[in-house]
């Protein structure tokens, strides 16, 4: 074990900690943004430091530093212990961790083409090529495209003998085009509004074929300016993967975070309607077609790793099985409170934040039978909604409202009329219970978001969502006064 980490753990133990862990994290970031034909920004970033988490008499303390030497390790460890003792004066429920074998090993994201080794000219050129095709379409106001790569090397060690090393690489890219006329601003994005992200190398960015999608995307944004307003009423809707992933994120991912259920997020993002009595009662979260799993082993996911940030091995945890609520995202502290073992979902944003329960890859499993296009063909009358434009959900994750960039009317199994400014709203479990078709493997793809916010002080996390698209019946569409 490196000397700095050993020193931090020894100091914690000497000062009375019953448990301590230390993470040393080195993070590199590279981002490129292109705006309306010119390179707006290229930036490189690096950040490194250590974070020490300690348990003293059942209370947590955490401290961190960007200085990596043994003297600073002593200081940070002592500060973490002091914070734990101060926290203990307001403690109501002492933390008690589940048992697990010490974690040991190495994990690295499989990468074919190292995004950091590839020349900047190549990456900039790929964005500019897509940008040029978007701007060639008449009526475009402004365009944006982005590339982002992040590599995190982190070592973890704990007083129970755990020691792991991980190297995790994420890449993402997006193109966006905007048409403006009067008060109307219509945006289209590809592959989705937040960008297509995966745990992979630059081969993933090539697979997106940004330039190949640019022209059609731009033409659609211009068409949207003159498209009729999306109608209001109760509709059958089909959600494209570019919208469905965020629906899962907000309405299943967050409410299954067990720390949230116990109130530790109450003063910020809220609590959850999925209380523990609903786990015991076998609450029907959705229709029997709905199988949702938290899978930290899924290839390419932003939530894929070897071990979480308290040394629990990556695993697959069913959250919803055949529609029934069956599990939570959990930690070593929270899982025992419901008689379970940690599901391995503790993750920290870099070295200077304490791990929290976070999503891994929250995936809606595909259903054999119909592709997404075949589901469209099977729909007489409805709307096809794609690419998120805005999102909002209440503090218990029940009442949600989403807007998408585009809606297409479905008549007799065919996509037709384009509509602008679509919105839909509902109550989470009613919505998922109305799901009557889920696409099969042919449209199943891994998406994700690099900016899932949680905690005070705030943390951003990269989380994954694999989806294939799905159909929902009797959904309220068109909200507000237009």
């Amino acid at each position, binding site marked *: 074990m490196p000397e700095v980490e050993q020193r931090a753990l020894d100091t914690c133990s000497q000062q009375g900690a019953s448990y301590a862990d230390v993470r040393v994290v080195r993070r590199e970031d590279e981002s490129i943004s292109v705006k309306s034909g010119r390179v707006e920004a*290229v930036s490189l970033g*690096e950040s490194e430091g250590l974070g020490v988490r300690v348990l003293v008499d059942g209370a947590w303390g955490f401290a961190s530093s960007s200085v990596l030497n043994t003297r600073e390790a002593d200081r940070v460890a002592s500060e973490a212990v*002091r914070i734990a003792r101060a926290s203990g004066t307001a403690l109501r429920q002492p933390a008690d961790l589940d048992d697990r074998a010490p974690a040991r090993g190495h994990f690295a994201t499989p990468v074919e083409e190292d995004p950091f080794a590839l020349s900047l000219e190549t990456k900039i050129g790929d964005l500019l090529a897509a940008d040029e095709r978007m701007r060639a379409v008449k009526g475009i106001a402004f365009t944006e495209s982005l590339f982002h790569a992040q590599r995190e090397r982190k070592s973890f060690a704990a007083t129970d003998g755990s020691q792991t090393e991980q190297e995790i690489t994420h890449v993402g890219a997006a193109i966006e085009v905007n048409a403006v006329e009067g008060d109307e601003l219509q945006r289209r994005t590809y592959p989705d509004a937040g960008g297509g992200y995966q745990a992979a190398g630059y081969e993933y960015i090539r697979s997106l074929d940004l330039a190949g999608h640019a022209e059609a995307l731009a033409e659609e944004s211009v068409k949207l300016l003159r498209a009729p307003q999306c109608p209001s009423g109760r509709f059958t809707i089909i959600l494209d993967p570019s919208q469905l992933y965020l629906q899962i994120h907000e309405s299943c991912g967050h409410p299954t975070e067990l720390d949230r259920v116990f109130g530790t997020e109450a*003063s910020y993002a809220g609590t959850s309607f999925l209380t523990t009595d609903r786990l015991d009662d076998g609450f029907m979260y959705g229709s029997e077609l709905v199988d949702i799993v938290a899978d930290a082993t899924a290839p390419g996911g932003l939530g894929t790793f070897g071990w979480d940030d308290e040394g629990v091995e990556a695993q697959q945890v069913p959250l919803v099985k055949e529609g029934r609520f069956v599990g939570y995202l959990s930690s070593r502290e929270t899982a025992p409170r419901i008689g379970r073992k940690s599901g391995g979902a503790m993750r920290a944003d870099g070295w200077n934040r304490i791990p929290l329960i976070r999503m891994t890859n929250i995936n809606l499993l595909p259903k054999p039978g119909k592709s997404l296009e075949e589901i469209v063909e099977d729909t007489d009358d409805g709307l096809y909604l794609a690419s998120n434009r805005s999102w909002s959900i209440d503090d*218990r994750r029940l009442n949600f409202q989403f807007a998408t960039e585009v809606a297409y009317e479905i008549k007799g199994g065919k996509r037709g009329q384009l509509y602008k400014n679509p919105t839909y709203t509902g109550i989470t479990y009613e919505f998922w219970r109305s799901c009557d078709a889920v696409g099969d493997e042919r449209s199943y793809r891994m998406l994700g978001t690099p900016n899932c916010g949680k905690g005070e002080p705030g943390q951003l996390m990269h989380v994954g969502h694999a989806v294939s698209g799905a159909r929902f019946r009797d959904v309220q569409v068109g909200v507000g006064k237009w």
Partner: protein
Amino acid sequence: MNLRYIQGKRIGVASTNRLDDEALRRLAESAARIASLQPELEDFTSLPEPGALPEVAGVFAEATASATPESRAEAVRAVISAADQAGVLGFGSYATNRERVTVVNSLGVRASEERTLAQVITVAMGPDGEAGYAEQAAVDHTRIDAAEIGREAAEKARRSRGATEIEPGDYPVVLEEYAVVDLLDMLGYLGFSALAVQENRSFFEPGKRVGSELVSIWDDATDPEGTPTSFDYEGVAKRRVTLVEEGLCREVVYDAHTAGKDGRQSTGHGLPAPNPYGPFPLNQFMGAGESTREELIGGLDRGLLVTRFHYTNPVHPKLAMVTGMTRDGVFLVEGGAISRPVRNLRFTQSYLDALAGVAAVNRQRKLLRGFLGSVVVPAVRIEAFTFTGATEH
């Protein structure tokens, strides 16, 4: 450390949190390499030139800088104690922050300042999930009354007990300060930035009416009533900018780049590079009115008193159409008096229409945290607010 390296009109940006010689050398080399690969940024004029910085009082408080884990825990215990006394549970955080920001550039800008901020926020919850909220921010943490914040949230939760359904629809509302924060934050994000105007994605047009005559909004980082600072992240002196005056759009905020495009001077609202969002008003104020809190509520024949908003997001940016939820205390007001707590509602509402409907403004204001900076806001009464859905609590 964040470095902008400029070669003619080519710009490279790199950052590191390592301050050793090797890391700094690599930082400069990286930024230079990036700049050399860039095409020229045609509308880039210059980094800011040095200028006099205003003397700003109240930026730093030693008491906050030297706050300890034990003093923060003491404040937390005060909040919990207030919750205990009211028979509810208390959740929340107490944070103290100390930072030094230094900006230098090769044209001679030299700016450095140490800043502090303390903040307590709490949600109190009763046995049936009824909730109340309170928060306080201050540069000097000894000015924070954690016990009082705890009592305010606990009392709100107690009064929220037994909330019943109410039909969504159009209601006149009184928005407490915690809700008004979101109006200013969202409008700052959507429209008060010069970049948003230059890209034609803002509602802002000089002279356009966006609020009633009771609505005046400005950004002023030099006012000690807020969280003052004397310069922005480009080292430019902070200037007061009138955003909305008696309901009419006046000015937007600039950084060096957007100012250069418009042939103006930066107003001192630059964020760290690279910054795709453009300049941002980090210290917004809304003008106080003449009404007491009782008069605000007393003016509702049948309407809603809203504590705060939750998870708001723009549905239509140019119209400033926003959706979100109410949270932590909503009350039906009938005949000018609170009649009963009601369950939370979803709204889908143009914030510009909301400003246009402001009929009364509280004479007192609160300093509260915002999306990025801080805001100083009063409670307001608005003639109509559109609620489009309901939830179960």
